[in-house]
């Protein structure tokens, strides 16, 4: 504790120690090894595990997709055959169509509601913590539970929604039967689950907008609505970009909600006519029900490309709107 010499010698600033010194004390040397190698040791667990179980499988998907590969192992190298089949596969394009349809139905209302909710919450209110926790309740509902509850709410015979429609003399809807109805039901689950979460992100961004901007606008006679669109929305643009990209990436991988909604034997195919099968479900069906790993991998790789393209497009659009 008293001897200062070896410790100062370990500081990186004086690492250019003269080699002429007869012997460096063991402790100092250990300490230098520690400073040089600890950082790599600390980041190694992440990189090793992520490389083996994250990046490698993703890259290897591309390799598998070039083969006729099934449960018994790698078959012949078939080049781009799987992709050629995929481009002519109506079930795949149907799944892409469904996924994007539900993505729009789920993302747009979700973010608009979140904007409104956030601006309502962004005022002097009593019980703010209670209100915030209230809007977050949906994300603490376990995901399969969401699927189960809404399956019942949208049930043809026993559901609350059809009951309410009956009050205004609308005939019961078989929500699972058609594209528009099943998309609506599934999108409702997603909207319900994520609106409050996005509202809190917007609220955080809104709270950092300087007050005097609004005061100046009020002096200039701008209405509340005008202030909202001309000050609030532009000022929270980074938060909006963030939520749009995150919801797009999540929406392209939509899986649990439609699968649970499907119930029964047609669950993985998204209904008897594939009316609500998403691309993730199609990939799963090909790989883990038909055991066609090569084709499933081609589907996976296409989803990956679609997600990347959509994320970039989204980013460009939301940024350009400035």
């Amino acid at each position, binding site marked *: 504790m008293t001897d200062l010499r070896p410790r100062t010698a370990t500081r990186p600033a004086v690492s250019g120690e003269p080699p002429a010194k007869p012997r460096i004390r063991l402790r100092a040397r250990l300490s230098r090894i520690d400073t040089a190698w600890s950082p790599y040791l600390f980041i190694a667990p992440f990189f090793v595990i992520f490389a083996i179980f994250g990046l*490698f499988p993703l890259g290897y998907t591309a390799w598998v997709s070039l083969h006729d590969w099934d449960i018994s192992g790698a078959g012949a190298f078939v080049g781009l055959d799987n992709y050629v089949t995929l481009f002519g596969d109506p079930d795949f394009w149907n799944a892409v169509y469904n996924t994007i349809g539900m993505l729009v139905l789920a993302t747009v209302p979700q973010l608009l509601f979140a904007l409104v909710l956030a601006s309502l919450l962004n005022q002097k209110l009593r019980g703010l913590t209670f209100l915030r926790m209230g809007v977050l309740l949906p994300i603490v509902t376990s995901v399969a539970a969401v699927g189960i509850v809404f399956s019942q709410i949208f049930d043809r015979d026993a559901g609350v929604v059809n009951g309410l429609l009956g009050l205004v003399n609308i005939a019961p809807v078989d929500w699972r039967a058609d594209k528009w109805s099943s998309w609506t039901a599934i999108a409702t689950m997603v909207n319900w689950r994520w609106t409050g979460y996005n509202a809190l992100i917007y609220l955080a961004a809104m709270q950092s907008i300087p007050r005097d901007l609004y005061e100046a606008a009020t002096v200039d006679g701008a209405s509340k609505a005008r202030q909202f669109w001309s000050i609030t929305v532009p000022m929270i643009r980074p938060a909006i970009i963030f939520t749009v990209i995150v919801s797009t990436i999540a929406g392209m991988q939509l899986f649990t909600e439609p699968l649970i909604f499907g119930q029964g034997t047609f669950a993985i195919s998204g209904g008897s006519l594939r009316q609500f099968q998403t691309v993730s479900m199609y990939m799963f069906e090909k790989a883990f029900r038909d055991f066609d790993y090569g084709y499933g991998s081609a589907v996976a790789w296409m989803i990956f490309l679609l997600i990347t393209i959509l994320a970039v497009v989204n980013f460009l659009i939301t940024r350009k709107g400035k």
Partner: protein
Amino acid sequence: MRKSQPLLYCTLIAGIVLSAFPLYWLFVVATRSNDVVGDWPPPLLPGPNLGENLGRLLDADQANFLLGMWNSALSSVVVTVAVVFFSSLAGFAFAKLKFRGRNGLLLVILATMMIPVQMGIIPLYMIMVELGWQNRMEAIIVPSLVSAFGVFLMRQYAERAVPDELIEAARVDGCSTFRVFWTVVLPALRPGAAVLGLFTFMGTWNEFLWPLAVLEADNPTVQFSLSQLSTSYYTDYTLMFTGALVATVPLLLVFIAFGRQIIGGIMEGAVKA
């Protein structure tokens, strides 16, 4: 207080009711019998059948519900502890230590954060076959032990929350780098680690696609088990709802205990579930 306040409160309360109703409905149906679930008007108050429904849930052989709960609890706890530990360790290194290639490696983490690694599940499944981990919890736990998002989050947090002087002081006292991390940095990172931990726990608890691919119905996670209930008991809504309710209770408890931190975490930005 302006005049529009009552209207504002009414709108907000309507919003809260909408956001809470499905959860409340979950509870109501779980306490009822199947005879009344389809009635109109629907039963809006809890009934006396919760105990009976729980009994049927445990008896539902094909769902293995208790094992599912145990498996999910085990994997969620292990994954949460590991993610928080490894993310703090790497986050600290990126924020506070100097080493060659630091910026490049950080860029790699940023780039991988948004990558949907879920799309690699086919080769991942092959790896599990090689390792003999099909239908075993290792397959669920090991690939999730680290998170690019977690490293990034903890790096941001460490930059702000850990003063350089604190680290220097510990070094002057002769601490090794790991001891500095353990005794000085980790305590300072605790609030950030709590938020990361909560979101990791909820995320692992809700994992569905990968367990469905690699596990079998005789060794499920809780979400898998719930999906079994919904496929085998086509219209037995009270049973499905009871399972869904029980599967939500752990998340609700976490939320009641740590709700404020969760909200703080979201409000501080860039936290995804």
